[in-house]
C-alpha cells in the first residue's frame, strides 16, 4: 500500500528562505515526488503553529509519513517527533532533513542552494517511505553509583550523592583518597592550606554511611549499560586485615625497611615498606609494599606482624574481586605529571638542582621532607636565586600542544612562597601569563609587587657549562627575552620545571572498559564541549575533574558536583529511555562466521555455541551499525538506518543524476519483437 507523505519545508524566517526557494521546492515535491500527499512551506515549522499544522494534517489527511526540511536534527528532531507522536503517528516515521546548517547558511548561489535543498528533500521523501515504527525502551536506574578516583573531583561527587541519600562506591587506586591536592602545600590564589580544606572532606567520605570506600583497588571490568552496570573491582592485597586494623601505626613505626617514596613525596622523601602515604590518610589502614618488604624479599623480619596489637597483618592475603551493581559511573581519575626527562636540555635528572613542580610542592610543604624549608639537594644550602620555567611539555608541538592551564598560577604561588621564606631572587620564564579566573590576575599583580621577576621567552636550555666566572658553579638558564629581543643567560641556584598535566597512562584502557573515548592526547571526551561537559557519549558514564582536561581545583570541584547532579537526576527519575536504534540479527540465516563478534567494542554481540549463531544483546547495543556493514551474509539489520532506507536516501539524493542512457533504458525502449 502506498504511503501518504506530508512534506513541510521551513522558511526559518529568512534563514532558509533567504537562500533557498522554499515555496518552489514545496510545490515541486507535491507535484513530482511519488506518494507525497501534502506539501507545504511555512515561516517557522518549529513554532507551535507549525507543529499544529503537521498534527492536523496527520489527522485529517491520514498521513503515514512526515518529512520536515528545516534545521539540524540535533536541534529539532525531538520537537517534530513529539508533534507526530501527539497526532498518533509513530515518531520514528518522521525524517528531519537539514536545509539550513547544511545548505542555506553555507552556500552563496541561490539556485545551487535550492538545487541542493531539493535533493535533500527528495532523499528524505525516498527514505521515509522505508522507515519503520519503533518503540523506545526504558530501563530502571539502580540508585547506587560508582565513583572512580578519590581526588578532589571524585570526593566532591561522592559527597554530593551520599548527602543526597544515595549509595556511592568510591574506588581509589592508591592506599588513601585525597589525590594530588593532598600533596600540595598551599592553593592559589587564596593561599589556603591545601590539607586544611581537603582533609575534612576526606574524613567525611571515610565515615559517611552512604559511602563504601574501596582504596588500593582498581576497576577490573564493566558490563551492562546505563541504569544497571555490573562492575568488577580488584581489591589489591594490603596484607592488612581492613576490619581488624585500628590504624595505631605501630607497624609503620617499627618497620625496619625504608624506601624512597616516589608517589606521595614525589621522590623527595622516604616511607616504610608498610606505610600510610601521609598522616591524614583515609582510611587509616596501612599497606605493605610487597616489592620492598623484607618478608617478601627473603622470608625474614615479620616485625609488624609480631607487634600488631590486633593481629591484623596477613602476609598471605590475596587480591579479591568484588562485584558491585550500580546505575551510573562517574570517572574522576585525574592526571599525571609530565616526565621532565623527556626534555633533556633542561637537565632534569642530570643536574641536581633542577626540580619538578611536584618535587617543589613537597619541598615547600610544612609536612614534607624538609618541614617546609626551601633548600637545595644537599639538604642545607638555601638558594639565592631560583628560576621557574613555564610550559615544560605544554604548548610544545613535540610533547603536548595544549596549555596545562594551572602552571602559571602555580608558578606565582611558588614565587610567593620562595619570597616569603627566603631572600632568593625568583625569575619566571613564561610564554604568556594566563591568569583568567576569579582573583587570579590580582594574584599576578601582587607578585609583581612582591618583586618576582618575569622574563617572557621560552627557555632553550639549562646548563652547567659556565662561560664566565660569575656563572661558575651555577645553573645557567639560557633564554631569549622576547620583550627586549636578546639572548640572555641567567645564572641561578635552583630551577623549577612547571611540567605539563598529562592524562593518566591507562586512561584509554579505563575508558575502553567504561565505553567512552579519549581525545588524541588521552583526555576523556565529553558529550558536548560547551553544553554537556560532564556527560559522555555513553549514557550513564560521566566524567569530572582533570581526567577530562587540565583544570584547577575550583573547576574540578564544580565538575564533581555537576556530575553528581546529573546522576542524582537520573536516579530521581528512576527510568531511562534508550533509543531503539539498535542492530538485530536474523539468527535463522546467520551462519556463525564470527566476523561481527569482535567488531563490537561494547561486546553486544554474543555467540551462542549450541546453535552456532550470533545474537545482539539489545541492552548493550549502541546502534553504531558497524556490524551491519560488516556482516558478509547481510543478515544483520540496523534499525532506523537499514540498507533499504539508506539506499532509498541515496537514490533520492541523486534524483537528478540518473542520466538517461545513450540509448533509452531497457524497460522503456522499443525493441523489435521477435519474429513469429
Amino acid at each position, binding site marked *: 500500500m502506498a504511503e501518504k507523505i506530508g512534506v513541510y519545508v521551513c522558511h526559518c524566517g529568512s534563514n532558509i528562505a533567504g537562500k533557498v526557494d522554499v515555496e518552489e521546492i514545496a510545490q515541486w515535491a507535491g507535484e513530482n515526488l511519488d506518494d507525497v500527499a501534502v506539501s507545504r512551506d511555512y515561516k517557522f515549522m518549529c513554532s507551535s503553529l507549525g507543529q499544529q499544522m503537521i498534527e492536523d494534517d496527520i489527522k485529517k489527511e491520514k498521513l503515514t509519513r512526515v518529512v520536515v526540511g528545516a534545521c539540524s536534527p540535533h536541534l529539532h528532531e525531538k520537537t517534530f517527533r513529539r508533534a507526530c507522536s501527539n497526532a498518533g503517528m509513530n515518531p520514528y516515521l518522521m525524517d528531519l532533513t537539514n536545509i539550513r546548517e547544511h545548505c542555506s547558511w553555507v552556500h552563496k548561489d541561490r539556485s545551487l542552494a535550492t538545487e541542493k535543498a531539493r535533493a535533500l528533500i527528495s532523499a528524505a521523501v525516498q527514505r521515509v517511505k522505508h522507515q519503520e515504527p519503533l518503540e523506545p525502551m526504558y530501563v530502571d536506574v539502580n540508585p547506587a553509583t560508582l565513583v572512580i578516583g578519590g581526588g578532589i573531583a571524585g570526593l566532591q561527587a561522592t559527597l554530593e550523592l551520599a548527602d543526597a541519600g544515595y549509595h556511592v562506591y568510591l574506588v581509589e587506586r592508591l592506599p588513601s583518597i585525597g589525590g594530588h591536592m593532598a600533596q600540595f602545600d598551599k592553593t592559589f590564589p587564596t593561599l589556603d592550606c591545601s590539607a586544611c580544606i581537603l582533609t575534612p572532606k576526606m574524613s567525611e567520605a571515610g565515615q559517611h554511611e552512604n559511602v563504601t570506600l574501596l582504596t588500593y583497588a582498581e576497576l577490573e571490568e564493566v558490563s551492562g549499560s546505563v541504569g544497571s552496570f555490573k562492575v568488577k573491582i580488584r581489591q589489591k592485597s594490603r596484607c592488612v586485615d581492613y576490619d581488624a586494623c585500628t590504624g595505631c601505626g605501630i607497624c609503620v613505626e617499627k618497620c625496619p625497611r625504608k624506601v624512597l617514596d616516589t608517589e606521595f613525596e614525589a621522590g623527595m622523601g622516604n616511607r616504610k615498606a608498610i606505610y600510610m602515604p601521609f598522616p591524614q590518610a583515609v582510611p587509616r589502614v596501612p599497606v605493605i609494599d610487597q616489592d620492598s618488604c623484607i618478608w617478601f624479599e627473603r622470608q625474614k623480619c615479620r616485625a609488624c606482624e609480631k607487634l600488631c596489637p590486633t593481629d591484623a597483618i596477613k602476609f598471605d592475603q590475596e587480591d579479591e574481586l568484588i562485584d558491585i551493581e550500580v546505575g551510573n559511573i562517574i570517572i574522576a581519575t585525574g592526571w599525571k605529571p609530565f616526565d621532565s626527562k623527556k626534555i633533556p636540555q633542561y637537565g632534569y635528572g642530570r643536574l641536581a638542582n633542577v626540580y619538578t613542580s611536584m618535587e617543589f610542592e613537597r619541598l615547600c610543604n610544612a609536612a614534607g621532607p624538609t618541614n617546609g624549608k626551601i633548600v637545595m639537594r644537599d639538604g642545607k644550602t638555601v638558594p639565592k636565586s631560583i628560576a621557574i620555567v613555564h610550559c615544560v611539555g605544554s604548548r610544545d608541538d613535540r610533547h603536548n600542544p595544549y596549555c596545562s592551564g594551572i602552571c602559571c598560577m602555580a608558578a606565582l604561588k611558588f614565587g610567593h612562597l620562595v619570597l616569603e621564606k627566603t631572600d632568593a631572587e625568583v625569575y619566571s620564564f613564561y610564554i604568556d601569563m594566563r591568569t583568567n579566573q576569579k582573583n587570579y590576575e590580582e594574584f599576578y599583580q601582587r607578585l609583581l609587587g612582591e618583586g618576582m621577576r618575569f622574563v617572557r621567552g621560552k627557555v632553550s636550555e639549562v646548563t652547567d657549562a659556565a662561560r664566565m666566572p660569575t656563572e661558575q658553579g651555577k645553573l645557567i638558564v639560557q633564554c631569549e627575552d622576547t620583550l627586549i629581543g636578546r639572548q640572555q643567560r641567567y645564572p641561578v641556584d635552583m630551577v623549577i620545571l612547571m611540567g605539563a598535566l598529562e592524562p593518566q597512562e591507562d586512561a584509554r584502557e579505563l575508558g575502553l572498559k567504561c565505553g567512552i573515548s579519549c581525545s588524541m592526547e588521552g583526555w576523556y571526551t565529553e558529550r558536548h564541549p560547551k553544553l554537556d561537559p560532564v556527560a559522555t557519549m555513553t549514557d550513564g558514564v560521566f566524567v569530572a575533574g582533570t581526567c577530562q582536561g587540565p583544570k584547577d581545583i575550583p573547576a574540578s570541584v564544580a565538575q564533581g558536583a555537576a556530575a553528581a547532579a546529573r546522576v542524582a537526576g537520573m536516579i530521581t527519575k528512576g527510568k531511562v529511555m534508550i533509543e531503539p536504534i539498535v542492530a538485530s540479527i*536474523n539468527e*535463522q*540465516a*546467520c*551462519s*556463525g*562466521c*564470527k*566476523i561481527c563478534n*569482535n*567488531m563490537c567494542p561494547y561486546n553486544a554481540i554474543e555467540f551462542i555455541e549450541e546453535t*552456532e549463531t550470533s545474537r545482539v544483546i539489545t541492552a548493550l547495543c549502541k546502534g553504531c551499525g*558497524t556490524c551491519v*556493514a*560488516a*556482516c*558478509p*551474509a*547481510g*543478515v544483520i539489520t540496523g534499525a532506523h538506518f537499514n*540498507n533499504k532506507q539508506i*539506499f532509498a536516501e541515496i537514490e533520492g539524493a541523486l534524483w537528478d543524476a540518473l542520466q538517461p*542512457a*545513450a*540509448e533509452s533504458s*531497457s524497460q522503456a525502449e522499443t*525493441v523489435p*519483437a*521477435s*519474429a*513469429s
Partner: protein
Amino acid sequence: MSESAPTSGNGNGKAKGKLAIYWAASCGGCEISILGIDTKILDVAAAFDLVMCPCIADGKVRDIEKMADGEIDVCLFNGGIRTSEQEYMARLLRQKSKCLIAFGSCATEGCIPGLGNLHNRQEIFDNSYTSETHSTENPDNVRPQAVTEVPEGKLHLPIFYDTLKTLDQTVDVDYYLPGCPPESPRIWEAIEVLLSGNLPAKGATIGENTTVCDYCPRTRKNKKIKEFKRTWEVIPDDETCLLEQGLICAGLATRAGCGALCPQVNSPCIGCYGPNEGVEDYGARFLSALASVIDSEDPDEIDEIISKGIPDPIGTFYRFSLAGSLMRRGKRPAPAATSQ
C-alpha cells in the same frame, strides 16, 4: 506469469509440460550439472517434453518462434547476454515461457564471462584475435565482421556487446538458481518445487538463506587478520577456519547450497554461489567483512596489507558477480554523443 504452476505431467494423466533449456554466454557446465541429477532425469522426462536444449537435443529456433506466447512452461536459461543473438533468444524465450529461470551463475550474475566487463569489445577482440597472444595464430589479423556481403545479399553475424549483461538486466526473470554450476541436488530440489505447484514469490532465489560457513565443519574462533595469504603460500591445517589462517575464503559471504565442498578439501571458497538473500552487491559485502577484521589501525599498513595480500581485488571479490554488481563493469569511455 508465475501465478500458476507449470502444467505438470507427472503421471496423473495430465498433459506433459514443456521445458526449454538454453545457453547463452556460458561454458556448458550447467547442462552437465543437470545431467548430474542422474536417474531423476527420467522423472523430468516424464513430467516435461524438452522443446529446446542446444547442448543435448535438436530444436529449432523457428519452432520456438512459431509457438504461442507462454506455451513453454519452464525455461532454464543459463549464460549471460554478450551478443545480439543471445539477447534475441532471451527475449524470445521470455515471450514464449510461463516461467523463466535464470539458471546458474552466468545468467544470475554474469560469472567468469562477466569479468570481460573490465574491458570493451575492442580490447577483448585484440586479445583473442591477435597473433601476439600465445594461443592465437592469426597472421592475416582476421576479425569477425557483423555484416558480410555475399552475392545473395547481406549475411549477419551477431554483434558482440561491450558489456555483458545478466539475464535480468535484459528481460524479466521469474526465479533464480545460483551456482557455478548449480549443484545437481539443488537442481532437483528446484524442479520438485516447480512440480509441487507451491511456488515462491516472483523474483525469489530458489535456495537457502544462509552462507557456506553454516555447512563448513571448521572451527571458528577469532577473526583478526594481519596478513592475507595466497593459496600457494601456506598449507592450511584442516581444523581451523581458513580465513583465520589468512586465506581469503569467501564462504562467509557466499550463499549456501554447495555443502561447503571446497573448504572441506582444504581449499578456500571462491564464491560461486553468489550473494546471500537480500544482499545487493556480493563484492561490497565480502570486501566490507574482510576489511573490517584487518588487524591494523595505521592507514599505510592497511594499504600494504591489502595491496600485498589482494593484488587483484576484482578477481577476489567479483570473480562471479561483476556484471550483476552495482557497478556492473570497469570504466568505459563516456558514450559518444549520439546522432539524434
